[in-house]
């Protein structure tokens, strides 16, 4: 029997399924590692960094200062924070905002997103008020303009009124120290060109 030559069969196509499985395993593994390292796969990458902030003119909370207008923010570096009294994560973020406001590094402008003015004011009275101005955005016009998905979200705006950074969640101490504060310091030293 052994002297009958075996028919020549091309075997490499049988490796294709194995290759597909290996490639998929690699992709899934990478994704799992990303999630492990804190990258949230549900985050939508922002397209707004380095684009001018949208124009807005938001009514102030009753009895609390002036309207929040995009025009007024130009000429200085600003941190714009979207929050709401209904937002649980905002409570967690709030002590950090208060600390930033106390440090005087940057003025924080608040957007009371989809909130009742009374509820916003009560919330600020209870948790403390880190904001320079607070504008109401009851129907999400400003929020959609900023591509906001869920509160809290914050934006660093430079002197020219250009969005330079988006923080898609809670500003933690680590993010503030490592990324946001150094960026704001750098932007403050940039000259105003317009």
């Amino acid at each position: 029997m052994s002297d009958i030559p075996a028919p020549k069969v091309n075997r490499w196509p049988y490796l294709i399924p194995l290759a597909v499985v290996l490639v998929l395993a690699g992709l899934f593994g990478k994704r799992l590692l990303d999630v492990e390292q804190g990258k949230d796969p549900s985050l939508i990458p922002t397209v707004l960094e380095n684009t001018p902030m949208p124009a807005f003119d938001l009514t102030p909370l009753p009895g609390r200062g002036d309207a929040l207008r995009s025009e007024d923010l130009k000429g200085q570096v600003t941190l714009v924070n979207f929050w709401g009294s209904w937002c649980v994560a905002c409570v967690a973020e709030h002590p950090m905002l208060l600390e930033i406001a106390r440090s005087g590094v940057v003025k924080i402008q608040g957007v009371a997103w989809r909130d009742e003015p009374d509820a916003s004011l009560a919330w600020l009275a209870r948790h403390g008020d880190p904001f320079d101005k607070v504008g109401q955005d009851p129907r999400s016009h400003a929020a959609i303009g900023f591509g906001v998905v869920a509160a809290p979200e914050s934006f660093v705006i430079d002197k020219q009124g250009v969005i330079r950074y988006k923080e898609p969640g809670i500003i933690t101490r680590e993010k503030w120290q490592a990324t946001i504060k150094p960026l704001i310091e750098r932007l403050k030293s940039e000259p105003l060109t317009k």
Partner: protein
Amino acid sequence: MKWSTIFLASLLATAAVAVEPSEMLKDPALEARAREVSKHLRCVQCQNETIDESNAEIARDMRLLVRERITAGDSNDAIMAYMTSRYGDYVRLQPRFMPVTYLLWFGPAVVLLLGAWAASRRMGRRYKEPSALSAEEQSALAAADDRQEGGRA
């Protein structure tokens, strides 16, 4: 009877619609346009629903903004362009036709063609006449036959 009723009812079920009567535009033609645009916009919070179907609050506000823009005279394309400028291509439920999405658009057709090519090769081979045995194979066959007959005898 009961189960067949449930089965038939499930056939009639369609995607849920979240648009509330109070949101709708008075002009049916404009409202139809708003529905059309809404069906092409993805809810940014829930990620796999259109804003037309989603009950998320941000989806509701996006629906209202679509209607505001339509009332203000914007074209469907202008509204899609505005939403894309705010949320990126992600917000379009139907991916645009551009180099990074070529694989998405052409992928299935390419896989189908590859499969058809592979299948035609295999079938062609199966129905081909077997080629004649070489001299070497013939002598090996003859030797095997001899051995077998010898064994039987």
